[in-house]
Structure formats: structure tokens, C-alpha cells
């Protein structure tokens, strides 16, 4: 333990020294709970990386373009619906494996169990050779090609697209660019207005918006020009800094609290595996994301250019379901809900989930809310032969 900094009378010398002492005592307190920590450490000693499996639901690649792959999931049930096929599109800041983290926490499985014909986009691992890929490429060329593939495979019938986080922004843009391809658009934790209602942010909300807003265009250009890519390491560190104490204590106090509980430890390790697998973001697309969207907020101003033309979100003609997380510390609620200003009321619905950004998909209570809410909404909008969507849909195959 670090020696206490005290004056000649034995009193702590200042608040900073006391703060250091409090931390030391906190660690000591954690060590005092040694038995709990030993149990967790014991489990960590036994488990192998291969034991921590994620994204195991069977699928096959049905379409490829450059590094982008579109996989179609194999049915898990004989139940079939009249709902058009659904394509799930995640963002580039993490990997789509988050929606199939484990058997009982899997949006993919929950949708398959409802009989949905499901496709998922995998953006691959962009390298510096991909640094010039921009929104034209990701929205029109890559996502557009994936959607067109399923559209054609379905007999030239519009399809459903479910966009998550940055993938939701891509999906919204494509829905405005090529509305004829869309039967419905579902979004989750998706930024549309990148400034949001800053005056009413709660503590911890919207830090990313303020932080990026404090950078100049020149700062961002310097980072992109120098590195070529926005590294996954850098974005991961920024995301960790959004929850400072949780990040500082997860490997010590957090692990001790689990007391070696196997299901809890495996859940934790699966999340860790997903977090660690953070790809680099292509530089030009990152430049647009940070400068044009986060800083300049061009999308809601109708000034964001895609394929040489200004994009108007009012071109979205299909029904829209917008799912947001009420305690989202990454995408403020007001940033997501802004889409309601662009879509006619008759076509627009929202579901507010009482949880955080990733919790929408991985928390146990989220399993029924997101998949159930989504399927019910699709049935209402598109289903002819009704299939009962269940509120608790976490099932094993």
C-alpha cells in the first residue's frame, strides 16, 4: 500500500493526498474481500478463450461485396410469417456480434424464433487500404447492394431494414435515398440530430456530442490525415472514458463482486470479447461522421450530401419504428427522437427502453422488449396471417 502523505503531526497534508488514500483504502477493501476475489480469479484461471463463444447462431454468407458480407440465418423454428425479410445493419464502431452475444441474450435468435427471415450485414475488418471509403460507399454501395440483393431474392419486393446505432443512420439515409426498397425501417439507439437537446442533458448524457463539438474541423482533419483511420483502440478508449468509475473498477471490484459465479463471469467475458473486437473506422467516413454530422449536424439541416446530392429525410415513405434507450450515455434520447420531425405521424412509432446503450440488446429484461416490440409492430404493419409475438422471447433453439 502507498504510504500516507501526512504532515509532521501525522495529519494528511491535503485533499489530494486524502483522495489518494481513499483510493488505496478502496483497493484494500477490495482485497479484504479476498475470498470473493479468489473465487473469481479461480474461474478465470480455468476458463479458456475458446470457452467464451459469441455469435454462434448458424448462418451462411449469401452475398459479398469487397469486405462486406451479408449472412442469412438458418431458421430455428417451423413458424413462418408473411413479414418481408429483415436485414440488420450495425455500425462501424463495434461489431454486429453484439446482437447474438449468447443463446439467451440474442436479438437474432429471438427474431428467428418468431419466424423472421433474417439477414445481417458484417462490414468486415477495414484496414488502411479502406481509408477512403465514405458514406457514399457504406450507404449506397454496400448497404444498398445488400438490400438490393434481398429485394431481388424476394421477387423484387421491398424489405425491412433494422439499423442499429451508426448502422441506423446508414439505414435512414438509404431509406431516404431509395425508399422503393423499404417495406419498413426500424432503428435502435440511432443518432439523427447530432446536437440534441443539450440544455437538458442529464449528468453523463451527451458527453460525446459536447466533446466532439469542442474539437475544430482542423483537429479532426489532422487526426484522420495522420492516422488514415480512426482506430478501434482510440474509439474504445473514448467509450470507456464515458463511464469512468465503471471502467476503473470492472477488473477488480467488479470481478470480486461476481464471486466466481460462472454464468455471471461468462456473461462478463462475452461482453469483454465483444468490446475487444472493435474494428478501425475508415478515415473518410469517420471524417464525415465527426465533422459533417457531429460537428455541423448537416443531416437534420438537409445539407448532408450523399452520392452528390443533398439528402432529405422527408423522402422516407415507409413505416418507421424508433427504439431508444432512456439511459443511453452515448446517443442521447433527443438525438434519436429527432427523426419524428421528418416522418409523417401515421408512419412513425417509438419504443423507449428503460436501459442503457448496449443494454437495449444484451440485458435480460431487454430480450422481450426489443424483439417482441419489433415483431408486434411488423405484424401490425405487414402481417397477414398473424403469428403471436411473445413478450418473453428468449428461447433456446
Amino acid at each position, binding site marked *: 500500500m502507498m504510504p500516507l502523505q501526512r504532515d509532521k503531526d501525522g495529519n*494528511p497534508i*491535503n*485533499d*489530494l493526498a*486524502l*483522495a*489518494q*488514500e*481513499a*483510493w488505496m*483504502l*478502496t483497493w*484494500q*477493501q*477490495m482485497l*479484504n474481500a479476498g475470498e470473493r476475489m479468489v473465487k473469481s480469479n479461480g474461474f478465470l484461471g480455468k476458463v479458456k478463450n475458446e470457452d467464451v463463444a459469441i455469435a454462434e447462431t448458424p448462418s451462411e454468407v449469401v452475398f459479398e461485396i469487397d469486405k462486406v458480407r451479408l449472412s442469412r440465418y438458418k431458421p430455428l423454428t417451423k413458424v413462418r410469417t408473411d413479414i418481408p425479410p429483415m436485414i440488420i445493419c450495425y455500425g462501424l464502431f463495434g461489431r454486429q456480434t453484439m446482437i447474438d452475444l449468447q443463446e439467451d441474450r440474442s436479438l437474432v435468435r429471438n427474431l428467428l424464433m418468431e419466424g423472421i427471415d433474417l439477414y445481417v450485414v458484417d462490414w468486415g475488418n477495414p484496414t*488502411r*487500404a479502406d*481509408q*477512403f*471509403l465514405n458514406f*457514399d*460507399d457504406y450507404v449506397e*454501395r454496400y448497404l444498398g447492394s445488400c438490400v438490393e440483393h434481398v429485394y431481388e431474392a424476394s421477387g423484387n419486393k421491398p424489405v425491412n431494414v433494422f439499423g442499429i446505432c451508426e448502422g441506423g443512420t446508414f439505414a435512414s439515409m438509404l431509406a431516404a435515398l431509395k425508399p422503393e426498397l423499404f417495406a419498413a425501417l426500424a432503428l435502435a439507439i440511432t443518432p439523427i440530430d447530432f446536437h440534441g437537446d443539450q440544455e437538458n442533458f442529464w*449528468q*453523463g448524457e451527451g*458527453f460525446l456530442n*459536447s*466533446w466532439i463539438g*469542442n*474539437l475544430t474541423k482542423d*483537429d479532426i482533419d*489532422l*487526426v484522420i*490525415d*495522420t*492516422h*488514415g483511420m480512426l482506430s478501434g483502440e*482510440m474509439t474504445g*478508449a*473514448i467509450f470507456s*472514458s464515458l463511464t*469512468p*468509475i*465503471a471502467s476503473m*473498477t470492472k477488473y477488480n*471490484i467488479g470481478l470480486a463482486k461476481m464471486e466466481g459465479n460462472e454464468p455471471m463471469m461468462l456473461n462478463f467475458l462475452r461482453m469483454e470479447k465483444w468490446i475487444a473486437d472493435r474494428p478501425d473506422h475508415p478515415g473518410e467516413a469517420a471524417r464525415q461522421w465527426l465533422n459533417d454530422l457531429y460537428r455541423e449536424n448537416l443531416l437534420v439541416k438537409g445539407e448532408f450530401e450523399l452520392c452528390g446530392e443533398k439528402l432529405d429525410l422527408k423522402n422516407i415513405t415507409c413505416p418507421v419504428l424508433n427504439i431508444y434507450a432512456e439511459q443511453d450515455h452515448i446517443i442521447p434520447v433527443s438525438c434519436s427522437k429527432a427523426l419524428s420531425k421528418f416522418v409523417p405521424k401515421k408512419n412513425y412509432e417509438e419504443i423507449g427502453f428503460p436501459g442503457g446503450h448496449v443494454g437495449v440488446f444484451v440485458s435480460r429484461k431487454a430480450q422481450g422488449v426489443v424483439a417482441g416490440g419489433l415483431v408486434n409492430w411488423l405484424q401490425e404493419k405487414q402481417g397477414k396471417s398473424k403469428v403471436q409475438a411473445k413478450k418473453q422471447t428468449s428461447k433456446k433453439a
Partner: protein
Amino acid sequence: MVDKDKSEGGMDQMFEIWEKGQDAFFKAQAEAMETFNKSFENMPDFSNKMKMDGAFPSWDGFIKTWVPDWDPNIFSNQSGEFANQFTKSGNSFLALLEPANWTKYAPEQLRVILQSIADGPKFADLATPQHEAAETWRETLDYTRAASDMGKVMQDAWIRTYGRFNKDHSIEDFKASDPESAMAGWLSAANHELLETQRSQEYMDAQRRMIRSSTEIKARQKDLAEAWSEMYQMPTRTEVDDLIKTVHELRRELRKVKREVASLKALK
């Protein structure tokens, strides 16, 4: 986020590359050095035949070409041995490139001087390495200062954390019967203060300066790596990037043409 250790390791490598680059440059630019020596008669010969007696006055005069107010005494006054070492050292030019020899004595004045050199007029065949050294040095100073500012912001945050914790708890609570409550109180206070600090303009400005200065250093490393690549007849990063960009634009054009052909076929 910046890894300080990695950055420092990077600086070592950077200066090693720089040193090798300097050697190769001077060997290859014999004629340029003759011109250089004629222009600044008292300047040291930067080849292996260094004229050490005149090194400091010549360098001093060289700096004053850009910065008339340059005062080397600030270093000798504060560092004692520094000017002496600089004058007598057998490696005086390389000593100039070692920020550790300088930065601690008068960082503000040094930064102004370096910026002045970096912003000064540039010659086609003269003193380019000195310009670049000045910019590198200024960037290193900026990073050091940014890291220090960030440390101060975080230090203040921890002081406030203790103040908040101390409203309901004390250090002694950790040693009393309910230490878990004290720990929870401490973590809650820390979380609150760190989140508040993150929202402050002071924190965001400090982070911005950290990002800016560390990226400038990275960009300088990139320049040096490119110089190294050129020296050994290897393709530079910029050349590879240019090729990638060309391929990317060609593919985009090809896609556009394919679409146009498809739509024309559909019309027939």
C-alpha cells in the same frame, strides 16, 4: 487517448531516425553544405569534422537570424552547466535535437523561439532540417504542456472528489465497522465528480490540446518515416495512400458506368 510511455518510446525512435537521416543528408548534400558554410562562415561544419570552438557563437548567430531577442543566458543562468556543455560537447548539434536538454529550463520562451523559427522564411536548399527540428521541438513542448494541463484538471477533480466524499464520510470510515459503505461512498463521489469534470470546458479544452499535440507528434513521426523510406528507395506511406485513392476512385467510376450501362440496357 494517449499512451505516454508509448509516445516517449516513439520519441526515442523518432530521434534515432532523425539522427540517421541527418547523417545521410549531410553526406549526400556535400555541395549544399559548402554553400551553407559560405553563407554562415562561423557556423560549425556539421560533417564529421566539427569545429567545436565556434559552435555556440555560430549557432547563437544562426538563431538570431530569426529571433533577434534570443537570449541564451536564460539557459546558462538556470541550467548552470548547460551552455558550457553545449559549447564543449563533441556532439553539440545532436544535443540541440534532444528536448530533454532544453525544455525544463524555459519552456515558454523556448516555445516562442521555436515557433518563430518554424514560421520563418524557408530556403530551398538551406536549413530545412533546422526548421523541422524547431517544429518537432515545439510539438514536443506542446505535448508536455498539454499533458501537464490535463494532469492538473484531473488532480483538481480528485481534490473535489475528496471534498464530496468528506461531506458524508471520512477516511476513518474505511477502517471502521462498515468499510463497504465507505467504499461505495467513495466510488459514488468519484463517479459524480469525474462526470462533472468531463462536462467542464476546462477538461474538454485540455483533452483537445492533448489530442492535437500528440497527433502532431505522430504526424512528425510519419514525415520522418517517409524520409527514411525515400532514403532507402522504398515506397512511402503517401505514395501507397495515393495509389489506394486512385484505385478507390476508379472503382467508383466503374460502378457508375456499370449502372449507366444497365439502365441503358433496360431502356432497350
